[in-house]
């Protein structure tokens, strides 16, 4: 009996023990950011609630924060499991967990402008209650995989009214969002929620606001996206007034400039004064200074990814603009409404049209003479929607700088002496780019997007002349010439590229793809033919050679959300360059890391390696269209760079301000420079390798960017503290010396303010430390005669200046204030825009160039500073309809 009684008591207590909980059991729990299995352990230990589940089926690793007190068990279980795709049931005394099948779905599609159908790049698609979201890619496509019962999506983009769209069903599907511009006239009411800086793993990237570019002060009325890029920290513009960009101590040839995915080799008009990109045709500009995504490769220092507008799908529009320098036109509209659209824009300078007569007279071109000096560029894009899953884009760009002189005239004197002759001469000098891209977007499934690109681009420099001369006093004087000459250089590349964008779940964004590019280099070819007095004098072709090379690359990138506070971007870019029997290969890791600190500051780090297989031969102080592109060789191998960056970033809670601080260290190997004493250089003959030296470069610095992107008052303040160094075996005795665009401090302040409905004013102030300068260290007498008894030169002969070490001194600091104002008037069907600009408002004499000038009074040569670009007013007028 003594043994039976305890046994009965035990049996009686068992049900009490097993059924010690029910759905109304009051639960208290307070845990922060813990996985679900910790909650299960807590319930089991504290309340005796046993769980049963298979780890293979039920994922209890999801983290949650839950603080409840005396809450019924069912409610607690709902809070824990329902949103995480887990269902629960009571079986006996056990709480059995199982996965809901399926518990996720994928919403994908495009985000576009409601009125034009223009795809919006970088728009945010966000599920508020999940606090998770995504952004559209370069084609306006998004894919968001979330819990099946996601109730709504919030879609936003700068300058557009955000929309919140309820999701009534629970299936995966394609959903295109149309956003309405928030501005009527220029009254921008931004309700944007671009991904906050702390929500982006990407660092060292700047998105250039093209509309703000148009309201910023301009030189001679020409808005210029590259000049806007120059105003960003980490970017130096080189010589004043030029559009060259030096990013984090790199040279302009190290910038990969892409127009709709196609490289543009020379990005400037007028020897670097203006960029070739017409802002009317541009939709989006992204600048990467470091932390290069794996999909980019081929250059060392930066990527400028420019997307052209697609064209209005629903209505026809146009714009005409007249400025001091150039006139522009843009037309866009549907070819088939809602299916096919086009945009065509073009601009041309017209100084030559005005000065034609003066030039003819001054240059003695004759009545039939011609004088042309202009640049033009044109962009065309056609985009067609085949089906909800297939779109095709055809982009074309062509631009050229051109100088043509044609003389056809008879003369009756030469240098004041009687002489009758007829001269016909045609001279042309020009350079330009062409870029074409055909792209096909295909959505394989809601999670997998692809883009196939076929592209071709070319940069060409050409100069040629025809010269006919005939003495008219024949047969007494028998003189006639018939000469022809041409010099050109060219680089072509044709390529195919496939990109995939795969978003399996909100924790992973995977991009992968490959590219093949065929390069052809023709680095300086000359051909001459000269017949004098019916006698063939010369028929020469020089350096008529071309070099082909194939560049292949593969990339993979996973933007991985490890947990809410930690993201990792793992990428690799592998490439090979096959040229004339040689092969160079490179594996380039691309790593990014983001960790959320208290107060929503993001700590970001990146490490990227880049390889560049092509070199630009230049012996000029700035980069000119005459510079020659050549492929790497064994003696002059490909360039490599590795860059480490560390930064902090934050967007304020109200999205008004963005602040980023970044420090970077970049090392560059196999950079090249012309050797001292090398001759002038027109041809990259086989000996070009002997004229350059191969060396190393380093750059490091800190950048601060504070931006205000909303409201009527916008702008940014950027500050850069930087060092950029180079070292070559034969230059400056092999010691390290500053790079020619090494500026220690740069400060940029750009402000725009909307005044009422019609006026917008802007100001830009720039301060920069002086550039390095090479000055002679001695002068001495020259000799050109073997004997003092020979007659000397007609001209004064200056002494020889000894150029020793490069860049040992510095120019003066520069600063400048530019102002702009835009007046906009909206009529029923047209908008009129009048823009004023004042460049260098307080007429600062900034140093442009230093040289020695003979001072006859002092009987010596003085070091003289030359300044250009004084205060320059400008005005332009445009009408949009």
């Amino acid at each position: 009996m003594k043994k039976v009684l305890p046994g009965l008591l035990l049996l009686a207590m068992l049900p009490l023990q097993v059924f010690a909980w029910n759905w109304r059991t009051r639960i208290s729990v307070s845990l922060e950011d813990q996985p679900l299995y910790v909650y299960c352990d807590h319930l089991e230990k504290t309340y005796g609630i046993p769980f049963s589940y298979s780890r293979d089926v039920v994922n209890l690793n999801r983290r949650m924060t839950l603080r409840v007190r005396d809450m019924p068990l069912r409610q607690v279980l709902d809070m824990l499991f329902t949103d995480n795709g887990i269902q629960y049931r009571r079986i006996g005394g056990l709480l059995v967990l199982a996965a809901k099948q399926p518990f996720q779905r994928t919403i994908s599609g495009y985000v576009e402008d409601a009125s034009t159908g223009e795809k919006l790049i970088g728009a945010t698609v966000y599920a508020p209650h999940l606090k998770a979201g995504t952004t559209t890619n370069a084609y306006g496509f998004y894919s968001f995989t979330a819990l099946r019962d996601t109730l709504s999506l919030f879609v936003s983009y700068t300058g557009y009214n955000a929309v919140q769209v309820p999701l009534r069903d629970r299936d995966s599907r394609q959903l295109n969002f149309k956003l309405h511009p928030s501005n009527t006239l220029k009254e921008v009411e931004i309700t944007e929620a671009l991904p906050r800086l702390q929500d982006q793993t990407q660092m060292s990237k700047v998105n250039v606001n093209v509309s703000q570019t148009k309201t910023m002060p301009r030189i001679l009325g020409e808005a210029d996206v590259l000049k806007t890029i120059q105003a960003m920290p980490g970017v130096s513009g080189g010589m004043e007034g030029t559009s060259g960009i030096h990013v984090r101590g790199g040279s302009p040839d190290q910038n990969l400039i892409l127009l709709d995915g196609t490289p543009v080799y020379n990005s400037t008009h007028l020897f670097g004064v203006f960029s070739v990109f017409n802002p009317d045709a541009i939709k989006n500009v992204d600048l990467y200074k470091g932390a290069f995504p794996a999909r980019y490769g081929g250059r060392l220092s930066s990527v400028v990814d420019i997307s052209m507008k697609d064209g209005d799908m629903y209505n026809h529009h146009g714009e005409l603009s007249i400025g001091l320098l150039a006139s522009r036109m843009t037309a866009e509209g549907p070819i088939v409404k809602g299916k096919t659209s086009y945009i065509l824009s073009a601009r041309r300078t017209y100084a030559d049209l005005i000065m034609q007569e003066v030039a003819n007279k001054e240059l003695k071109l004759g009545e039939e003479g011609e004088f042309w000096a202009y640049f033009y560029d044109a962009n065309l894009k056609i985009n067609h929607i085949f089906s909800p899953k297939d779109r095709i884009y055809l982009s074309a760009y062509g631009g050229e700088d051109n100088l043509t002189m044609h003389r056809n005239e008879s003369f009756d004197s030469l240098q004041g002496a009687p002489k009758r002759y007829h001269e016909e001469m045609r001279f042309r000098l020009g350079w330009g780019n062409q870029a074409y891209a055909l792209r096909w977007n295909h959505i394989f499934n809601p999670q997998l997007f692809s883009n196939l690109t076929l592209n071709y681009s070319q940069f060409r420099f050409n100069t040629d002349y025809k010269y006919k001369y005939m003495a008219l006093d024949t047969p007494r004087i028998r003189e006639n010439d018939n000469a022809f000459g041409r010099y050109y250089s060219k680089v072509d590349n044709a390529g195919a590229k496939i990109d995939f964008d795969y978003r399996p779940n909100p924790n992973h964004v995977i991009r992968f793809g490959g590219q093949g590019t065929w390069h052809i280099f023709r680095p300086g070819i000359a051909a001459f033919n000269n017949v004098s007095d019916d006698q063939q004098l010369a028929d020469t072709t020089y350096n008529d050679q071309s070099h082909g090379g194939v560049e292949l690359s593969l990339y993979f990138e996973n933007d991985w959300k490890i947990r809410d506070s930690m993201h990792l971007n793992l990428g690799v870019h592998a490439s090979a360059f096959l040229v004339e029997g040689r092969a160079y290969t490179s594996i380039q890791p691309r790593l990014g890391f983001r960790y959320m600190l208290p107060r929503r500051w993001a700590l970001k780090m990146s490490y990227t390696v880049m390889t560049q297989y092509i070199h630009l031969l230049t012996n000029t102080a700035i980069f000119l269209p005459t510079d020659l592109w050549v492929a790497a060789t064994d003696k002059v191998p490909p360039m490599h760079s590795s860059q480490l960056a560390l930064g902090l970033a934050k967007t304020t809670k109200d999205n008004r301000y963005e602040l980023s601080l970044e420090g970077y260290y970049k090392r560059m190997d196999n950079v090249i420079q012309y050797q001292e004493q090398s001759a002038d250089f027109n041809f990259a003959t086989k000996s070009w390798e002997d004229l350059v030296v191969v060396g190393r470069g380093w750059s490091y610095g800190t950048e601060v960017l504070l931006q205000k992107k909303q409201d009527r008052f916008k702008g940014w303040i950027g500050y850069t503290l930087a060092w950029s160094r180079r070292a070559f075996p034969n230059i400056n005795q092999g010691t390290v010396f500053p790079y020619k665009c090494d500026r220690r401090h740069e400060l940029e302040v750009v402000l725009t303010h909307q005044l009422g409905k019609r006026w917008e004013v802007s100001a830009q102030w720039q301060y920069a430390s002086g550039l390095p300068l090479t000055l002679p260290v001695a002068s001495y007498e020259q000799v050109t005669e073997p004997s003092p008894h020979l007659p000397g030169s007609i001209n004064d002969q200056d002494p020889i200046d000894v150029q020793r070490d490069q860049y040992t001194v510095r120019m003066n600091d520069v600063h400048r204030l530019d102002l702009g104002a835009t007046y906009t008037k909206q009529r029923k069907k047209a908008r009129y825009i009048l823009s004023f600009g004042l460049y260098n408002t307080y007429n600062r004499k900034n140093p442009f160039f230093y040289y020695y000038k003979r001072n006859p009074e002092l009987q010596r040569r003085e070091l003289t500073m030359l300044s250009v670009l004084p205060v320059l007013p400008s005005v332009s007028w445009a009408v949009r309809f």
Partner: protein
Amino acid sequence: MITALALAACERPANIPMEYEGDRIVVNSLVQEDSVVYLRLTRSQPPGAISFPEIANAGVRLTAGNTVLPMQFKTIGGKGYYVSDAKVTAGMRYKVEVTATGLPAVEAADTLPRRPLLREPFAQEGGNRVKVYLSDLPGGDRYRIRLYKARKLDNGSFTPAERRQYRFDPSYNNSFTDLVTETYHEYSLIPDDRFDGKEILVVLQTRQVLVKNEVLLLEVSGLTSASWQYLKSLQLQEANRGNLLVDPTQVFTNVGKGYGIFAGISTAWVEIPVK
């Protein structure tokens, strides 16, 4: 636009502290075949100087192979030269060593190039073309071409009296912008890259109309590597002086521990009577 920018340009003296390497010996001599050596010795000066003190009491040792050639200091046209007693002959290596008080000793050496071959010069009254055949020999050659108005000496020979400007056939030096910009030069430097081992007809367009009975002298000099590098880099430095777009050029020197040039040239002269 560029013209407008240039017009708007403003110049003013700059105040930037500059380094100076200190005084050095400057050796200047283009050693010409069949001529005595004229060696000019001066001191370098801080950058910007236009006058340079002569070194009159230098220790100068000129050798042709192992033979020492005596030199005398002479003043010619107001300038001091060390002049060799003997003429220079082909096939020898010439070397000069110079010492001067308070300055690092210097030395330089070079040989002589081969002399150009010219034939059938032609110039016509009322015209502005001078023509001559130049026979290039196989192998790398470099030439300097100059044109003079000649003066007749009492002995009936002609001597150069005045430089004449001209422009050269662009087929060989790429300077076809000269045709457009109406530019004429005092000299041309051309390598034989495009006519190695061939005979070419050289055509010079003179700036001035040719006058009857005038005699022109065409000077074509063969250059050694050193004299070519010196003259070419000097041409570039002069051409690029004040050029905003180009980095300054370093002029070649073969004078160790000093500056200047000591290099060989061989000149062929041809008389061209204007017919």
